[in-house]
């Protein structure tokens, strides 16, 4: 028998109450992990962005387009090893018109040279380059819609009217967390040729791969300087910064989610503090007896803190055990399949799991602070006289 062992036994004294409290802590930990994972997954695109890619877009907004000839200017910038471009197509499959996925018109020759973290079988890539109506799709969207190589797919776009027919040439996978595995890639030329003459040769953005990732900031400035005197100015950023600006509109929501996650932990602390205080009050006479037989006030504080610690550890552990199947397998799978552009990789990060556990344990100790302080101030004779 040890002091902490005794505390743990005390924690299980009123099993019903302890089970409810542990469940309360566990649900708070689960909610905390879910919310923190939303914030983390949203930022993973920024954090896991390729350090050696620069994205150049229209200076005003990425909705506005650039002249295609800009790609040649960017390719001439010293340090740029290869560059490609893409257009946002905004396509939807009429058979799944409620499902959102990214559709991009890309240059088949250079896109996969820049996006080396998008893995396609060489034979499939060759077939894609050969077929002007070919498409490469992510493995997540392919699995979701049951698409296979050779399948015919028809998409509609609110930006580019008409029926757009494609044949699936290949399915890509990702070697980096930030890659959306639900994107539909097709030939830019196919899109360009299908447009009115005055709308042709416009591109959404340029992505350049650079030889020295440490120089992306300088090179971004140098690229933008080249277009300063043109009709259309540019804004060049590292891929991480570009992703951040794309996600920037949701910053306030993310901050709110962050605050709510902390509020949940605060509520958990109050519930736990109340339970510990109730237990301590009920045991006043027992604490008096312990003091009478020689236990010091600090020993009683250890019993109270140890009891709360036990509940914190149990609640934290149960919360994390619940979190993994719910977040990783349920919520995560759903978001990766249905909102892959926003949540390409929705998993519990080890940092968030550790933070949740530390907060559960830390807050349990804080919650027991006042009850522990109170028992150290008990007068023995008063405590022995009191019947809770």
């Amino acid at each position, binding site marked *: 028998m*040890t002091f902490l062992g005794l505390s743990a*036994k005390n924690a299980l004294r009123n099993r019903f109450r302890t089970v409810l409290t542990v469940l309360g802590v566990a649900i708070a930990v689960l909610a905390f992990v879910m919310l923190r994972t939303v914030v983390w997954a949203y930022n993973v695109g920024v954090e896991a962005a390729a350090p050696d890619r620069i994205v150049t877009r229209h200076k005003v907004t990425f909705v506005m387009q650039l002249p295609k000839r800009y790609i040649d200017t960017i390719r001439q910038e010293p340090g740029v090893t290869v560059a490609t471009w893409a257009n946002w197509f905004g396509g939807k499959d009429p058979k799944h018109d409620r499902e959102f996925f990214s559709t991009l018109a890309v240059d088949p020759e250079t896109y996969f040279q820049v996006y080396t973290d998008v893995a396609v079988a060489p034979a499939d890539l060759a077939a894609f380059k050969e077929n002007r109506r070919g498409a490469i799709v992510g493995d997540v969207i392919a699995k979701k819609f049951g698409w296979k190589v050779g399948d015919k797919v028809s998409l509609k776009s609110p930006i580019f009217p008409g029926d757009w027919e494609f044949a699936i040439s290949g399915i890509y996978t990702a070697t980096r967390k930030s890659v959306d595995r639900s994107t539909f890639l097709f030939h830019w030329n196919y899109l360009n040729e299908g447009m009115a003459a005055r709308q042709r040769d416009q591109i959404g953005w340029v992505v350049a791969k650079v030889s020295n990732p440490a120089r992306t900031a300088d090179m971004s400035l140098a690229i933008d300087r080249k277009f300063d005197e043109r009709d259309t100015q540019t804004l060049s950023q590292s891929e991480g910064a570009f992703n951040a600006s794309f996600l920037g509109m949701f910053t306030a929501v993310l901050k709110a989610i962050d605050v709510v996650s902390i509020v949940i932990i605060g509520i958990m602390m109050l519930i736990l503090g109340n339970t510990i205080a109730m237990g301590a009050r009920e045991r006043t006479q027992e604490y008096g007896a312990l*003091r009478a*037989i020689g236990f*010091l006030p600090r020993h009683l504080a250890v019993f109270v803190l140890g009891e709360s610690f036990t509940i914190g550890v149990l609640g934290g552990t149960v919360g994390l055990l619940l979190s993994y199947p719910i977040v990783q397998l349920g919520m995560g799978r759903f978001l990766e399949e249905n909102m892959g552009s926003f949540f390409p990789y929705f998993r519990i990060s080890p940092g968030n799991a550790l933070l949740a556990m530390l907060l559960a344990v830390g807050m349990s100790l804080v919650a027991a602070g006042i009850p522990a302080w109170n028992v150290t101030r008990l007068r023995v004779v008063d405590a022995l006289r009191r019947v809770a």
Partner: protein
Amino acid sequence: MSESTMVRVRGLSKIYERGGEQLKVLSGLDLDLAEGTFEALMGPSGSGKSTLLNIIAGLDRPSSGTVEVKGEDISRLSESALATWRSRTLGFIFQSYNLMPVLTALENVELPLLLTKLGGAERKKRAEIALRIVGLEQRMDHYPRQLSGGQEQRVAIARAIVNDPAIIVADEPTGDLDRQSADDILTLLEKLAKDMNKTILMVTHDPVAADRATKVHRLDKGALSS
């Protein structure tokens, strides 16, 4: 202080302040308890017997006067020194046993030994001996809820003697028990005084229980009458 005197109380007064008024509970009291005796303290409610017991046990402090136990004036000790003194010198028996319900009889008896430097095996061994002395060697693994009132009080007595204290104070130890169980407890206390040379001071309302003591002190309005 003669060699056989375990507790020596001199000029003991205790005054409480309640709402600005002074309430004198004990006034200039002298008392000696001899080593190895089983003595009882009787008196009507409010006579100050529990206050006197608490002061002798080092749970409360006198307003004036001295309390010497084994020659040491405990009224001069600090709170933490008093707690350590209690853990080494004193055994306490309560009317309502005050056992921890989450611990077995053996673990309850072992509890005071957590404050010593003894290892787990030695603590367990001593707790087993104490339980054997009170006749509960067959109930070591039982929880308090699985024991009768008399058995619970025996566990409490085992807990009181496990650290081999010089003095045992008992506050109404038979107050919650039926007559048979009370007799068994009193017999056990007699045996502890006689065979193990423990000095026992028992507060009781029960004249039958007091009759079993070697000496009875009567307290009335804060003063000893006999």
